[in-house]
């Protein structure tokens, strides 16, 4: 890896940009396990982290990598792991622990074709629901989804910042295209990247409660082995002190706070980009690499005289329900192309409450969705009677 301070224009892949972004955000710990198509992130950090006195460790499996990340974060370090589909499945156990114990960390999933071993070198978006519900239990989560190399850098920074801000794991969903495509990027100059650190303990050790209910629902977080804050962390349902409890009131309070922590700050977390949506009659809801084809299709449609627009979530979870709902009031149809068979289309359908048509379009052969495919969907939607739009 070259000098991260340089803000010259460079050519790099999404995976490299992810590693660079993490370093810029203050990453000091990486644990991972080799898996295509994410391994370059680990390889970059194996070189870069020791240079800044950070830790890189290749663990014996995906499960252990996630555990090590949580352990390191509890000592106060910014920590992450990166993986792909099969590895993401294995992360779920300790990812859930991070949700429950409120341990900031970043999990990158460079999505490849599935199910199972699937297509190690080909793109997919089949893990978007797993990102939401992959770990058991009724937990909240934040997931971000970039559509370019430059945005991968920016959203990696953001993901680590959100993790710190809300004491939560954050998932960054790339896909194989974004992970491996080489693009021109201009990295921000060193020192210009906004870095957020977790809220430190604000009371003396004797009074410290690691899971205190605060107005913003985010408890201040002390670090293991620092300044005499000795506290207990468990995956069991716990009270404000962090110790296990069977008290229904305490358990209910904890679960509701975990959700409130994200919902309460929804506006600060959700980012949605809209292009040409103001007067659109047909909108395309697309994310990740597919959003690039969608952008092109929308431009072509405009040239053809069709009032098309693009809504592109950069935050997939929490789902940008309100933005989609507002759009549904104005457009006839929302087309949802994705590299799965309708995972986010269902979410869009639920959000629009039948106020407009929703046309799902899925591609699951390991190939990218092409602009022409989306364009033809837009054309059909624009010309079809309102109630008869189908894929």
């Amino acid at each position, binding site marked *: 890896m070259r000098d991260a301070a340089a803000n010259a224009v460079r050519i790099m892949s999404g995976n490299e940009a992810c590693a660079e972004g993490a370093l810029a955000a203050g990453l*000091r*710990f990486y*644990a991972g396990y080799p898996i295509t198509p994410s391994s370059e992130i680990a390889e970059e950090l194996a*070189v870069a982290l*020791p*240079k*800044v*006195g*950070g*830790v890189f*460790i290749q*663990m*014996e*499996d995906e*499960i*252990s*990598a*996630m*555990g*090590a*990340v*949580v*352990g*390191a*974060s*509890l*000592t*106060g*370090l910014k*920590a992450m792991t990166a993986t792909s589909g099969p590895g993401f499945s294995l992360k779920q*156990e*300790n990812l859930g*622990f991070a949700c429950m114990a409120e341990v900031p960390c970043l999990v990158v999933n460079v999505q490849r074709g599935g199910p199972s071993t699937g297509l190690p070198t080909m793109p997919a978006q089949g893990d978007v629901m797993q990102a939401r519900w992959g770990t058991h239990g009724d937990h909240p989560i934040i997931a971000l989804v970039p559509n370019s190399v430059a945005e991968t850098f920016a959203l990696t920074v953001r993901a680590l910042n959100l993790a710190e801000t809300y004491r939560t794991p954050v998932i960054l969903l790339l896909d194989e295209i974004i992970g491996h495509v080489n693009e021109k990027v201009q990295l921000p100059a060193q020192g210009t990247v906004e870095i957020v650190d977790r809220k430190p303990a604000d009371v003396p050790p004797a009074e410290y409660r690691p899971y205190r209910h605060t107005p913003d629902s985010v408890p201040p977080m002390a670090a*293991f*082995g620092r300044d*005499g804050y*000795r*506290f*207990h*962390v*468990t*995956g*069991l349902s716990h009270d404000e002190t962090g*110790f*296990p409890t069977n008290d229904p009131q305490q358990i209910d309070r904890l679960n509701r706070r975990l959700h409130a922590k994200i919902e309460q700050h929804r506006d600060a977390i959700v980012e949605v980009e809209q292009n040409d949506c103001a007067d659109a009659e047909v909108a395309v809801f697309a994310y990740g690499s597919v959003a690039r084809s969608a952008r092109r299709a929308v431009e072509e449609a405009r040239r053809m005289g069709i009032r098309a627009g693009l809504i592109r979530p950069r935050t997939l979870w929490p789902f940008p329900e309100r933005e989609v709902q507002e759009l549904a009031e104005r457009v006839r149809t929302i087309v949802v192309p994705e590299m799965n068979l309708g995972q986010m289309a269902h979410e869009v359908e639920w959000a629009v409450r039948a106020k407009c048509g929703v046309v799902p379009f899925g591609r699951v052969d390991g190939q990218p969705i092409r602009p022409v495919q989306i364009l033809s969907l837009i054309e059909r939607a624009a010309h079809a009677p309102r109630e008869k739009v189908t894929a």
Partner: protein
Amino acid sequence: MDYDKYLRLDKFPLIWCPGCGDGIVLKAILRAVDRIGLDRNEVCMVSGIGCSSRTSGYVDFNTLHTTHGRALTFATGVKMARPDLTVIVATGDGDATAIGGNHFIHAARRNIDITVILYNNCIYGMTGGQGSPATPVGKRTATAPLGSIEPSFDIAALAAGAGASFVARETVAKPLLLDKLIERAIRKKGFSLVEAMTPCPTTYGRLNKAGDGMAMTKFLKDHSVSAAKAETLSPEERTDAVVTGVFVDVDKPEYTEEYARVVEQFGGPARPAHRQLGQSA
């Protein structure tokens, strides 16, 4: 010694059953910590799931009660981030060698400076007496109603084979020997294991008509033999023998120190220095 200063007394009473040996192991750990003179702030105890792993809730250190079998993975993260902390893992035979078997052998292979106190009661106590990898052949469990047909692990030999720097086994029938071994294990720079044989009268005892905690502890005491003595026993005599003692005590490169050299070679800033405890007097 004053045990209370290391305990979270407000979390008492302990969840362990009458006759369980886990409390004896807990006290042995505290005696070892006290003798070494460790500051509570410098100790991080990490545990998995099961009866043994509840130890972390009772000790006034930095404590981390993790997922089933994964204690060593979290502990590895803590130790890599803070080589200056003393990291102790409390785990059981099922936690460490069934669901956590992969982590156990790899932590030993890396020779990372973590001390594992493995409470071996040869059964899953907390979940009601199912068979573990340490259940001896022929012994009944809730999932082996006619007796286990699986050969069991020799856990100490497993750690030794995987590369641990210090490996010992003792029973709760000899608590003062146990704390000395735990002290040596904590002082050891590298991966160390103390396998503490402990009775579970509630499940193993009932299912195998082994008697109460006292009877089971007496059994452990009566059947303890040294490795040298074990060599002279007939195969029949060895079936019930509990071989105790120190099996491995070697010095070799420790992982966090090796990693510090990697950082140095890359020209990175100095990492927190590895803890230096030295050998016991």
